[in-house]
Structure formats: C-alpha cells, structure tokens
C-alpha cells in the first residue's frame, strides 16, 4: 500500500466508512457512464459522481470547493449539459458496437493498462514527509483561507480568468448568434405578400406536410390530389439541407398490405 500519506484527520473512522461506501459508488457510477446507452443516463450518472466528489471534498476539509462543486458544477454545468442534450435529442442513444476496427481492444487494454499502471505506481510512491492535514491552513476558515490566496497570491490568474470567461461568452455568441441581415417583415407585409403573391392559392396558407400516418412526416411532402407532391409543404430549410424524404418510398402501391401494423 501507499507509503506516502499518514493517517490524516481526527475523524478517521467515520471518514473511512463514508469513503468505502461512496468510493465504490463513484467508480460504479463512472463506469456506468461508459456503459449506458442513453446520453441522458450518462449525464445523470455524471452528476451523481460529481455529488460524491463534493462530499469527498467536504470530508477533506475543502468545504468551499464542496459547495461550489454542487452549486456550480453539478448545478449549473451539468444542467447546461442536459440542456444541450435536450437540444440535440434526448432520445439519442449510442450504439455500443464498435465501428472503428481495433479500437475496442485498444480501449480495453488501455483501461486495464492505464489503471493498473497508475495504481501500481501510486503504490510505490513515497512522499518522504509528514502529511500535515489542513487544520492549520483552515484555521481562519476554509473560505477565508482560499479567499486570501485568491486575492493576493493568485490575483493575476484570477483576473485573467475573467478574460477567459469573456472569451467563452463571446465564442458562444459567435457560433450561436444569428445576425439578421434583412429587416424582419412585419405582419402587414406578410399578409400583403400572401394575398398579392403569384397565385391566390397561397392565401390560405401553405399545405401541411406529411400525408402518411406511418411517419412523422415533417420531412415528407404532402401529395396533391393528382398524386404529385406539393413542393411548398415541406419547410424550406429542410429542403435546402437535403433532409427531405422521397415521398415515393411511401407510395401506397408499394406497401405490402399483408403486413399488419408496424410497431
């Protein structure tokens, strides 16, 4: 076992109990992150690990960090993750079959090798000095101690981090912000356009897509009475992106009526 640290803290026994309960849970949850199919589940498990870590922080006299971990990390950052997951598609699930040849064995070997080597190395590490514990450093209170460091010794990094935050914010803006290039048409203008358009057919609004029940059909054009697709029935941007499905594949004549119902 590792020789680098002595027993620390006065509350050795309860801490050990806590550790041996939460530690394995953290590892299992982390492993679960790897193994579950759905990204949302991964996120939940991630949050779980983070909370356990917060408890560990508090147990190790890092109260401030523990709280920040819960509030900022688990609370804000993970929520951001979940939010994006919603945006991307909450149902999206990974197939866990490996598609890149040879990667799976490499990953497994890496997992075992890396973990094994780390553990083995840590077992050999010696520090050569006494572990001191934080009672002295936290004498004025953990938050105060950190604050003192943060605003004196590390004040410059602290200031720089603010620039980093601005960078991040601006970066997100660049990627997400849509600058209008044209003036948004008013309701009035839209109405005029509708009624004074090329044909009067547009006056009643565009036809809705998706005439086939067996499909969600946002991306399938509606059929006009003569059986031809109505081009305006699908959102223009879908069309532009080429995400429009070919209505022919849903042609009734090609559907095998023998088959009962799709699940």
């Amino acid at each position: 076992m590792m020789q680098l640290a002595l027993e620390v803290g006065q509350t050795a026994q309860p801490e050990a109990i806590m550790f041996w309960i939460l530690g394995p849970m953290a590892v299992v949850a982390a492993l679960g992150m790897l193994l579950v199919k759905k990204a949302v589940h991964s996120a939940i498990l991630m949050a779980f690990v983070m909370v356990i870590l917060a408890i560990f922080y508090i147990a190790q006299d890092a109260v401030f960090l523990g709280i920040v971990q819960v509030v900022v990390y688990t609370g804000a950052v993970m929520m951001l993750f979940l939010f994006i997951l919603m945006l991307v598609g909450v149902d999206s699930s990974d197939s866990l079959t490996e598609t890149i040849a040879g990667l799976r064995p490499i990953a497994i070997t890496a997992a075992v090798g890396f973990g094994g080597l780390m553990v083995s190395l840590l077992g050999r590490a010696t520090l050569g000095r006494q572990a001191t514990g934080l009672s002295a450093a936290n004498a004025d209170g953990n938050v105060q101690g950190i604050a003192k460091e943060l605003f004196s010794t590390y004040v410059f990094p602290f200031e720089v981090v603010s620039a980093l935050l601005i960078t991040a914010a601006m970066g997100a803006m660049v990627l997400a912000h849509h600058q209008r290039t044209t003036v948004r048409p008013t309701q009035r203008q839209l109405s005029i356009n509708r009624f004074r358009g090329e044909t009067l057919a547009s006056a009643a609004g565009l036809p809705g897509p998706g005439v086939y029940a067996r499909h969600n059909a946002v991306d399938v054009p509606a059929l006009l009475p003569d059986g031809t697709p109505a081009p305006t029935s699908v959102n223009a941007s879908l069309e532009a992106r080429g995400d429009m499905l070919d209505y022919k594949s849903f042609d009734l004549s090609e559907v095998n009526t023998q088959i009962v119902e799709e699940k």
Partner: protein
Amino acid sequence: MTFTAPVLSYTLLSPILILLGGALIGVLVEAFISKALRPVVQLTLTLGTLLLSLLQVWRIRGEQSLTAAMGSLVIDGPAALLQGSILVIAIISIFLIADTEHFTPLAAALPGSAEEREATQAGNQVTEVYPLTLFAVSGMMIFPIASDLIMLFVALEMLSLPLYLMAGLSRRRRLASQESALKYFLLGSFASAFFLFGAAYLYGYSGSITFTGIRESVIGGSGNDVLLLIGMAFLTIGLLFKVGAVPFHSWSPDVYQGAPTPITAFMAAATKVAAFGAMLRIFYTVFANAEWSWTPIISAIAIISMLLGSLVAISQRDVKRMLAYSSIAHAGFLLSGIIALNKAGLDATIFYLFAYGVATVGGFAVVTLVRDSAGEVTDLNRWKGLGKRSPFAASAFALFLLAFAGIPLTSGFIGKFSIFSAAYEKGATAVVITGVLSSAIAAFFYIRVIVLMFFTDAVEDGTAVEIPSVLTRATVVISAVITLVLGIYPAPVLDFITNLAIFIR
C-alpha cells in the same frame, strides 16, 4: 487574519495588460460600433494593440523580475524574446486575418443555407476574430512566462479556447472547418485533462504549485520520484500536444487543413512559440535537475516526431496537410533544443522558433493566395505551374520551403545548425543523426512542391492567384525578408538572443 494587498508591477505586466485591454475594447466595439465600421476599427485597434504591446516588450526587455504578478509570472530575457516573437508573428498574421475572404459571414448559419448566402451578400464579417485573436495572443504571452501551475493552466486554456473557436469559422468547406474545431476542441480538452492531472501530481510531490517550489523539491526532494515522474509525464503530454509532437500530434493535420488558413498560420506559428517557450522554461528551470528521467523520453519523442512527420508528409496531396506534417517534424527538431539543456540550446530554440514561426506564417500566407472561384486551392496537383502564373507567390513559397528544409542562406539552416549543434553538445547524437536524416526525407517533399510549381506545366482549371492584397503581400514580403536576412546575416539577432536569453529562477 491579515490580508496584504497584492502588489502588481504594472510596467512589467503592461504588454499583457495592453493586449487584454485591447481585447476588451474589441468586445465593446462589437457591441457598439456599426457593422460597416467594425472591420476597419477592429483591424486598427488590434494592430495598434499588438504594436503597442510589442513596443512595451521592447522597452522592458532588460528587466528581470520574479514578483511582477505576485509570483505568478516571471519576467526575464527569454520572456521578452518569446513574447516579442509571438507579437511579431501575431502582427503579420493579423494582416492575413484581415482578408475577410477566409471567414464565414455568419457562423451560426447552416452551411449552404439561404441565410448564409444573404449574410455573404450583405457583406457580413465575423469581426469577433480580432478580439478572439487578442485573447489568444495574451494567453500565448502568458504561457511561456507563467511561473506557477495555475497561471500555466489558465494561460493554456486562454490560448486554446479562442483557437478552438476560430478553427470553425472558415468560409469555404464549412463542414470540414467545424469538424476541425470539434476535433481540436475535444482532443485539446483531453490533453488539458492530462495536463491538469499531471499538475496535481506535481503539486502532490512538492507541496507547492509554484515553479520555484517544485524546482526546490526536484533538487532536494525527499521520498522517491514516482509522483514527480507521473506529474512530469502528464504535464508534458499537455505541452507536447500543443506543439504537435508524436504521438500527440494527430489533431494537427486535420485542424491545419480544416481551419481558415490565416488561423492555421497564426496557430501553427504562435502556438509553437508559446508552447515551446513554456517547455523551455519548465524543462530548463523546473525539471532541469531531473534531467536523467526526461531526456531519454523526450529524445525518443523527438526522433519519432521527426521521422513520422517527414515520412507521412511525403504522401500528402494537400498543401496545408503537408505543412502540418512538416510542422510535426519541426516539433521534433525543436525538441532537440529542449534536450540540449544548455545555453546554446536555449538560444537556438528561441531563434528557431522565431525563424520557423515567421516562415510558417509566410508559407500559409502564400497558400491563401492560390484560389479558384470556390476559394483556396490546397490540392497540390492544382499548384502545378504556379511559378509561371505567379512568380511572386511561387518564389516566396519556394523560399519558405527551402527554409523549412534548412537550405543554407535561409533562416531555417541557421536554426537547424544551431539547434542540432546544441543537442550534439549535449551528446544527443542519435537525435542529431535522425534529425539530419529526416531533413533529407523532408527535403524530398519540399522539393517536390517546388518541382510542381516551377517545373510542371500548368493544368488549365481556373486556379488563379489572387492579386495579393496589400496586407497579404506585406505578410509575404515581411516573412520572406526576415527569412532571408536571418539566413544571410543572423549575427545581430543571434547576439541579441544570446545576450538576453537567461532564465531567472
């Protein structure tokens, strides 16, 4: 509890503060200045900021201080040299960035959408790249002078994040550009995690997150070195990732290719200076006494970097990818300067960084000039006969290639010579031999490009060379002049470096 108010030496920090201030003003410009005026204002502001910062660097070049930022930064000769190099590279890169042709008019618009077309027609520009560049430059400025792990990590992220973003802003081939941003980001964060993990172990080993503290532990450490070694290894992974050394190089070809060329130029040149600057400081001061442990490993990495970079570059068909692999090989060459661990190695590495950085920007600047109706042409096959159509571009590119190949009378030769002799002095014969060999391999593909440009008949496929804008021309000319002058009469610069390049601890 007593709290002593921090004392910051604003004079010594001024180059960085100017940059940060300029960047912040840039952000405000984005918010308050009309769209039409923004490009000019931003360009002027950015250039002004960089020049001012450079001026400040020049003025404080002789200063030495460990306490300029409460011990977070160290100001010394190498700092001034590296910062100066970064600023020079940034300035000539800005000329390229100013050519709006390279950036998407609207990053949020879907590729190929009507919205994008409209934005193009409206003449939109992503002027945010200017403040982003300034933020990146300030990160790069801090990176090599950071003297504790916190500062180092913050600077690392500070230089990386804007680059991740800017990599995705290409106007043409946007999917590829976004992909490169994603790859760069994911792998960059991955490497950062290693970096951080290593930092944790170094902290564990020494009980300090300052370089001074770690260094003292390395010298007089009790206990065994396991924690140090792990920490060193992981920290180094983060740094090696940034410089693109094998096997942490895999992002660079893809990102170099996908990113907008001006960004590639800036990133390739300036990041290398910053990252190698940091490596120099860390390995020359912090880890110097644990030399036995890292020299063999860095040597091995240098060797495989040189070989792999050169070998794979041979079969590249895309000029930007080829330059990427060439930069991998150059990372190997530069690592031999780290291995040297002597004054000559320090001087040589700084010289090499500057020379290589300038030539790289120049090289990519030429790449931006070769276009057809759909934007840049990076397929080498279509560079055939460039010498005929545009002697200016082709000759300049040939010059930069020759510099990369280390042909005498270019800066690359002096750089290679000095860095290899420093490494040889250290006894790293294998590295030097491999370096020489891979130079030969590298020469092969550099020369092939020259052959394509000068000795192959052009195919008429509409590949034209843009009449270079004044700014791009300036970039090419400045880079070419520097490359030549450093090749023919490097003495003043070498002396300048030799006199200044002394680390303080």
